[in-house]
Structures are given as structure tokens and as C-alpha cells.
């Protein structure tokens, strides 16, 4: 894309005098900006960071930065799966409770069935994958809209978590309360590392692999994608499985971080809504066909900064929701407007 703009700029430059060269450069910059929707979210994240840093000395301290990335990582990780699903034209409302379920499964496996630590963790993750498979199967094969399918699994899994745990928190099993726990979330750096690794992996998956391209195709033109021979059902089911597995993983690292297994992790729907909000603020359209992983991760960062910063400068947590609501509405309006700009052909020619 860059070389195209450069070419366009140089063509204009050879044909026209100096004055319009600056204008061409400006137009090129605007086109780049519109094309990389993540850029606007990055700017918001930076401006927010600068504002809170100037308003509170505590904001840029090491301890607070740890707080911010620990709040960012789980929603960014879940947002990766949500973005893939939204791009392929589906949604998953159950990821948040899968996150609550997976540490319990690890706990049950270790403490009730004497399964060793690592296999128990793998089991908890695979249970997430299986829930994704079921979500995908019901949606794709039985043709229930994913909103309804995952609303059903959301309540069902909530029921499973609350019944089996009797709605009481559990302790982290001893066999994982060691280096494993540190690596998987108890360590200060663990959230940052996992968040970055997973975001980079799924950014590459969405933008540089056949899977990502077909995900966009399936969401952008479902009929056309299947006419091209893409197995659309497989792509969708796969993305449900990825989203649910990431949900399970986010639940595990959160359990290790707070050092307890909480049946109301993230307030039940909290993690899911934060992740969807992050994806939407990051420029992902609910209609399918477009969205970015980096945007979703930056969206998660913006939300974490807001919550943290407002806390630091002494605003009560309640206006946070006002700002969150306004941010979602504004970014969606901007999204629709930018899409129309592009469709109108005023960008990128």
C-alpha cells in the first residue's frame, strides 16, 4: 500500500508545481490514516495516557503500568477471538463465562480427579475449544443465529459454574501454585507477555494467512465465498473454537493473577462486553468483513487506561460507563462514516 501512495505522490509531483505537492502529501497522509483505522485508536490511547500522566503522578509508575496491562491483557486476548468472529459475521456472548469455567475445570481435574498440573490446564483449554465447537455446530449446521446460540450457552455455562462451585470461590490448587502459576498470570510481566504474543499471532493470522483472508471473505460475502469454494462453515466453526479457547485462556491467567478461582469472574458478562467494546472501538464492524486485531487490542488498552486513570484522579467509577458508552457510539458512527467515504471512492484512488 505504501508504494502505491508514493507512486501517486511522485506522479502528481512530476506533473504539477511545488504548491500542490504539499497538498498531495497531505492527501496521502489522510488516505493512510483512513486506511489504517487502528491509527485513530492509537492516538486516543496516547492522548489519554498523556492526560492521565499529567493529572496524576502515580499514572506512569511501574506498579500502575502493571495494573494497566493486567487490565488490558484479558480483554485484549478475548477481543482477538471476538474480532475473528465478528469479521466472519458471527458473535460469541459466552466467552466471558467460558473464562469463569476454565479455572474451575482445572481445579476439579487436579483436586477431585488427581490429574497432574499441565494435563489439567490443557484439559481446561480444550473444554473451551469444545464449547466453541458446540457454538459453531449449532450456529452453522443447525442454523441458529450465533447471538441466540451463544446466549443459550452463556446461561448454560453460567449454570454449570454456579452449580458445580455452589457459587463459592475456590483456591488455586497447590500443584499449580508455583512456577506454573507465575508463568500463567501470577507474575507481573505474565499478562503483558501473553497479551503481546497472542495479539501478534492473531494479527498475523488475520492479515497474512489464508485462514484470515477466508475469514474476511466469509464475513464480507458469504455466498461469494462459498461459490469460490471456501468452506465457510469450517471457517466459522474454527473461529468459534479459537474465540472460546482464548476465553478459557484469559480465565486461567486471571485466576492465577487474583490468586483465587472466582465463579463471578469479570462479573459474568463483564469480560465479554469489554472485549466486544474493545473490538468495536478498534474499528471492527459487526456486519462482518472488516476489523483488525491490533485495533481490538488498542481498544482494550483505551478502556483499561480510562478505568485506571479515572480511578487515580479520583473520579468515581460510575462515569466510566458514560464514557464507555459514548466511546462505542462515537467510534461506530466514525466507522460507518469512514466506510462510506471509502466506498464513495474518495479514498485510495
Amino acid at each position, binding site marked *: 500500500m505504501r508504494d502505491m501512495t508514493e507512486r501517486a505522490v511522485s506522479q502528481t509531483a512530476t506533473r504539477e508545481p511545488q504548491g500542490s505537492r504539499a497538498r498531495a502529501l497531505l492527501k496521502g497522509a489522510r488516505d493512510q490514516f483512513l486506511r489504517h483505522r487502528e491509527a485513530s485508536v492509537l492516538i486516543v490511547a496516547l492522548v489519554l495516557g498523556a492526560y492521565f500522566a499529567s493529572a496524576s503522578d502515580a499514572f506512569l509508575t511501574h506498579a500502575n503500568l502493571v495494573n494497566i496491562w493486567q487490565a488490558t491483557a484479558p480483554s485484549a486476548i478475548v477481543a482477538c477471538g471476538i474480532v475473528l468472529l465478528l469479521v466472519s459475521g458471527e458473535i460469541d456472548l459466552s466467552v466471558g463465562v467460558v473464562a469463569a469455567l476454565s479455572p474451575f475445570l482445572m481445579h476439579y481435574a487436579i483436586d477431585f480427579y488427581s490429574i497432574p498440573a499441565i494435563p489439567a490446564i490443557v484439559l481446561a483449554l480444550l473444554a473451551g475449544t469444545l464449547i466453541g465447537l458446540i457454538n459453531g455446530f449449532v450456529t452453522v449446521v443447525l442454523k441458529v443465529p450465533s447471538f441466540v446460540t451463544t446466549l443459550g450457552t452463556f446461561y448454560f455455562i453460567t449454570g454449570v459454574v454456579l452449580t458445580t462451585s455452589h457459587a463459592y470461590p475456590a483456591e488455586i490448587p497447590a500443584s499449580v501454585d508455583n512456577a506454573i502459576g507465575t508463568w500463567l498470570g501470577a507474575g507481573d510481566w505474565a499478562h503483558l507477555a501473553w497479551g503481546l504474543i497472542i495479539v501478534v499471532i492473531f494479527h498475523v493470522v488475520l492479515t497474512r494467512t489464508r485462514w484470515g483472508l477466508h475469514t474476511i471473505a466469509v464475513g464480507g460475502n458469504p455466498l*461469494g465465498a462459498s461459490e469460490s*469454494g471456501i468452506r465457510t462453515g469450517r471457517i466459522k466453526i474454527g473461529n468459534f473454537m479459537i474465540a472460546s479457547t482464548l476465553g478459557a485462556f484469559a480465565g486461567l491467567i486471571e485466576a492465577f493473577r487474583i490468586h483465587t478461582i472466582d465463579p463471578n469472574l469479570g462479573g459474568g458478562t463483564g469480560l465479554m462486553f469489554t472485549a466486544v467494546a474493545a473490538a468495536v472501538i478498534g474499528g471492527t464492524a459487526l456486519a462482518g468483513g472488516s476489523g483488525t486485531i491490533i485495533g481490538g487490542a488498542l481498544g482494550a488498552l483505551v478502556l483499561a487506561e480510562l478505568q485506571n486513570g479515572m480511578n487515580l484522579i479520583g473520579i468515581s467509577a460510575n462515569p466510566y460507563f458514560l464514557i464507555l458508552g459514548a466511546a462505542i457510539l462515537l467510534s461506530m458512527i466514525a466507522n460507518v462514516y469512514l466506510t462510506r467515504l471509502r466506498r464513495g471512492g474518495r479514498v485510495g484512488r
Partner: protein
Amino acid sequence: MDGDTKRDVLRVENVAKRFGAVTALSDVNLRLGAGEVLGLIGDNGAGKSTLMKIICGFHRPDAGRILVDGEPVELKSVDHARSLGIDTVYQDLALVNELSVYHNMFLNREPVFLGRFLDNRKMRRLAREHLADMGVRIPSVDVQVAQLSGGQRQAIAVARSVYSQSRILLLDEPLAAMGAKEGALILDLVRDLKARGEVSILIIAHNYAQVLEVCDRVNLLQHGTITFDKETAKTSVQELTDLVVAEYRAARQGSAGPAGQ
């Protein structure tokens, strides 16, 4: 029908297809010669789409058979038909608006490295070369398909099919919803393809006049069977229109009586 089975790249013999109580195709015989452009016309509900979907492997016929290069084949899927060189440019073009021209050109046939990573550089280069080779002019292969005109989109869909080594190209209503200028662009593309002689083309269309411009031969599909097969030079728009109108009149008289489904 004249013999010489060998030179026919595609033959449809006695094909029938029913959907429940509805007979879409009763008995279709059709042949497509090597390098030939055949126009398949017929009114709505005549069975054009069904026939096309059988040839491209989407539907299986209830009776009859399909021969490719004189060999009977049982088309199991769209992918299978495509592997035999039969490809379709659908009315909706199967293009993804959100993707660039070069990604659309290679949709589901993307060159990759290390097994799964997209070779964007190669796709971009090949798409640029191939489109230039076919005389398709677009601003850049990097633009999103959403930014192109209807004719450009159609041209890209055709170019994609040709590029994927298809020898039998089915064009489904290529001129539908297209302005005169855009339509001319597509007809030029078909003429170019014909001149190259690498592909045989079956055009499904409503618009007789424009179809006659590029087709070697015209078939008329009525009530699920081919009722008319003539070389373009030996027929006229008037004759085709008369046939369809006669069918309409007959149907109207028929429905006045007790028959009529």
C-alpha cells in the same frame, strides 16, 4: 445433433432435474465446442440457472449425464468441476468488496509460503500482469473491489476464472444490471477470449441482441428443455423474440383452460 464428440469440450445429455414437485429440467441436450461461445437464453423459470448449477457441480442431475472432453463425468462438487476446468462467473461475481483486487483474483487459490502464509508480493505481481495481459484496466490491484465499477468488477471475475486455468467458462447473466458502456467492455473481453481460443464459453443471458454480438451459436431453453439450436449467423433477434413471445402466448392460452400448474 452433429457427431464429432471429440471436439466438444462439454456435452449435456438427457439431463433432468426435479425439486420436489417442480420439474426444473425435463430433458436437456446441449453441446459446447472447443473455443466456441454459446449463448443460452430463455425466460425466467425456464431452467437456465438450474442447468448452469448442474454443469458447475452445484446440483446433481436426477437423470442424464455430462461429458467433458467426451468422457462421462459425475460432478461431485463445485471444486470437483473446477478441477476439471469448469468455472462459473456468477451474477453476484463472488467478489469480496472488503478485499483488494489481487486478493479477490486469488480467492481460495492463494499462493502461500511455509504452508499457510499469504504470498502477497507474488499475488500482486501476477494479478497485475494477468490483468494487463487481458486488457483489464483498473487504477491499481491494491484497491478494494468496492471502489470499482460494475464492469471492472465483472472483468475481474472473468479474469480470475480464466487465470485459474478454466477451459469451460460459464457466465451467468454477465450483462445484467450493467450500463451500455460497461456491457461493451465485457463483450470485448469475451471477444478477446474467443480470439485466444483457450476457453469455451457458455453465456447465460436475457438480452438477445447483445448475446448475438459475441456468440457463435444460440440455444433457447423453454420449459426445461432446449427447443432451438442455431448458429448465430443463421438467426436473428427477431426470430428469437418471436419464439419466446409465441411461447408466452401459448402459455396464456393454456392457462385459460383447465391445465396450468
